[in-house]
Every structure is written in structure tokens, then in C-alpha cells.
């Protein structure tokens, strides 16, 4: 495929990883993570919510691990942090359900070529964030 450019939309069937603090991870009484909360999407950056495009690393033997390594190269990742995996099409569908147009755009940064942004999500969209968090596909641990 052609190399995606900054601003290109991430295809609906693809997935992104969101780096989550331990404080936004819902746990059962044994401490086992069972999901992420709306606060996993809280982000002060006006450009959008930072995510990493997994399929960007499709040439890698383990694209998920490659995406996690790219995140770890640009951010401090702690033992209790997790990487929440979401489907792009479901993110956009949840936005449509709430009449909030959402998009996921490629936004490469140094040391993380798969870096992308969820556009259109504001911190006051608590209900929509709660809804998005329910569409979690998987929760991955740091290396």
C-alpha cells in the first residue's frame, strides 16, 4: 500500500491503541482490569486524542507489539498502565450515535510513525467517552 500521509484517515476496519493511566482502568476486587473508563479518553491536547495505529505496523511480525514499542519510545509507560485497543469504525459509529462527528487521522511524530489522533472528541463529552470505552476490543500490558 502507499505510505499514508499526515492527515490521512485511518480505515474503519483498522485498530488503534490508547495509552491508559492506571487510574482510568476499571478493576475487579482482585485488581484484575475489566475495562477502561471514559477518563481513558481525557486529553488536554487541542489537536485530538493521541492513539497509535496498529495496522500501520502491519509489516512487523507482531503489529500490536510494534505499536506498543512505538508508544513506549515517546511516552513514559508505567507498570500499571495499559494499552486499550479500539476499532476505528466503532469509534466513528459511536460518534454518529451521539451526533458528534469523530474521525481518526494519521499524525506521525518522531519515533512513532503510527501516531494518530481521534478528532472531534472534547473533554466535556462524558457520555460519549463512556460509550466509546465500552467498545474496548482488548487491553494490553506494557512490555
Amino acid at each position, binding site marked *: 500500500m502507499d505510505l499514508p500521509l499526515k492527515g490521512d484517515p485511518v480505515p474503519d476496519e483498522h485498530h488503534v491503541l490508547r495509552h491508559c493511566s492506571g*487510574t482510568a482502568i476499571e478493576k475487579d476486587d482482585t485488581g484484575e482490569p475489566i475495562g477502561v473508563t471514559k477518563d481513558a479518553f481525557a486529553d488536554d491536547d487541542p489537536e485530538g486524542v493521541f492513539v497509535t495505529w496498529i495496522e500501520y505496523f502491519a509489516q512487523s511480525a507482531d503489529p500490536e507489539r510494534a505499536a506498543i514499542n512505538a508508544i513506549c519510545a515517546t511516552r513514559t509507560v*508505567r507498570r*500499571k498502565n495499559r494499552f486499550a485497543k479500539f476499532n476505528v469504525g466503532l469509534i466513528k459509529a459511536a460518534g454518529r450515535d451521539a451526533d458528534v462527528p469523530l474521525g481518526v487521522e494519521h499524525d506521525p511524530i518522531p519515533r512513532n510513525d503510527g501516531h494518530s489522533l481521534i478528532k472531534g472528541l472534547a473533554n466535556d463529552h*462524558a457520555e460519549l467517552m463512556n460509550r466509546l470505552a465500552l467498545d474496548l476490543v482488548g487491553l494490553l500490558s506494557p512490555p
Partner: protein
Amino acid sequence: MNAHLVERSMVRATSPGTPQLCDAFRRNTGMADAPYQFVCQGTNLVAFNETARTDCRLSVSSAQGMGRAAQFNLALAGTAIGGKAWAGSSLAISSGSIQLNGGARDPIGWTTVMGSAVTTALDHIYIGTFAPETLTVEACAILGAFGQFNLTLADPTLADPMPADASVDETSTLARFRKILETWRGRLFTGTLDRLDRQLSHLLEDEEDLAELSRTPDPRTFEALLSYLAARPWIKAPSLTLTRDGIFVANWRPAREAKARLSLDFLDERRVRWSAADARDERKGPTMAGGVCSLSDLDEHLRPYRGWICL
């Protein structure tokens, strides 16, 4: 003891099956001649024996049909292991109000409480103890003034209390919040207190993670959450998370890992932000709701989610 309540409920006869309960009622109500009736589940009265339980729940429904208001009177008698009596304040009802009378411990360790409430649908009565007491409810009687009620006992499936962790640094965030939680002992049911302690330990154990929040965890919002739960003992202890601003968030799901969740952000002592999302029914499509309101208005907003949050 409020004799008026007893008279109004037209208590009758005496069952031979629960002599201890009958004796306790007589002693504690001072109505030695009052004829009480205790019969088996499935009628308007029920007797049961539950031992070594910290909290339990009784479900009551009107035999007159859903949506029809009916008054019922409730009487409970019991004792507690360890010689401590349980108090009337440990009873709660999930809708309407219940006025409790009695609660004093009699000379041989039994306590009797009586109350009156109005229900229009399936309702629940929560019986809890405040640690370190352990409850033994010997019997329960429910007496319908205007109709019959069905009463069943439900087990809220309580986990074992978490043992104290000697390795916790006394100056840590976790230790500070555990101290706050400890000050609420006696105002929260034992099961709720234990679960909150476990949730706190998972949430606050990593100081480096907490250091990355925009603000440190806010004790005021934690106390607002505890105050909310203490006033509503029929609500299950939630799972806990934090916002980036250090605000405590209480989360409930209708079932573990169900694609539905209610979250309450306790913004301060008076205000709460609530958000609910339900994506379980793919045919009907997802629903979302939420807003910011006063704590006093919150119960009305949460009415559709009672099944998610009640014990």
C-alpha cells in the same frame, strides 16, 4: 416501642416455629399479650435463620400487584455474634422511607426493631451490620396492613474482608485515603467498606501513576462519595477510578464486563457529573445519557439504572 404500629398491622396468633422470636418481641415491645404470628415464606410472614452474615437482603413485593401502593409493617429480631446487639439504624429500604422503632438490646442480647414503609413495586430491605459485629437474624416478620407481601432472602455474595497490608507506607496516598475510609466505619455497611478498601488499594497503590494526574486525588470528592453511599445503603459498592483532575469516580455495570456502565464523578460536596451508556442491545442501538446535577437531584436521574447499582 411504637404500639400504634403493631395495632395497625393487626398482628395475630403465634407460631410455634419461632418461639425465640416471639419471646424477643414480647420482651422488647413490652407487649406481653400481643399475639404475634410467624408463619412460613409464601404467606404474608416469613421466618428464617441466617447466621454469621455481615449483610443480607430481603426482597418484598406486594401481592396486590405492581404499581399499587400498599403499606407494610416490618419487624425483625436478632442478635449478633460476640454479644453485641445490632441497631435499628442498620436497616434500610430502597424506596420510600422506613421509620424504625426499638433497637435496644434486651437483657439476653436480642434486639427487636419495627418499622413501617410504603412500597409500590418490588422493593428491597437491607439488613447490615457495622464492623466488627456479625449479624445473626433469627427471624423476620412482615405484616401487611392492606395486603399480603412476599418476602425472600437474597445473598449479595460478599467477598471476604481484605486483610490489613502491613507493607503500606503510612505517608502514602493510599494510607491517607484508607484513614479517611476508616472514619466512616459505623456509617457504611461492612461489605461496602471492605470493597471500597480493596478498590482503593488497587487505585492508589502506584504513587508514580498518581503523580501524573493534573491534580492529586481529592479527599473532598472521596468523602462526597462516601456520604452518598452511607445515605443509600442499598447501593452496591462501586469500582473506583479517578479523573485527571483527581476527582473520584464511582462505576457500576449491570454485570461484570457487560457493555453498559454508569459513572458518577463526585465534583465536590454538592455536585456530581453522571454519565450512563448501554450498548448491550445491538438491535435497539446504544443509549447514552448524562449531565451535571446536585447530589439531591441525582436519585431521580438514576432511576432507570437502579437495577445496575442496587444490591
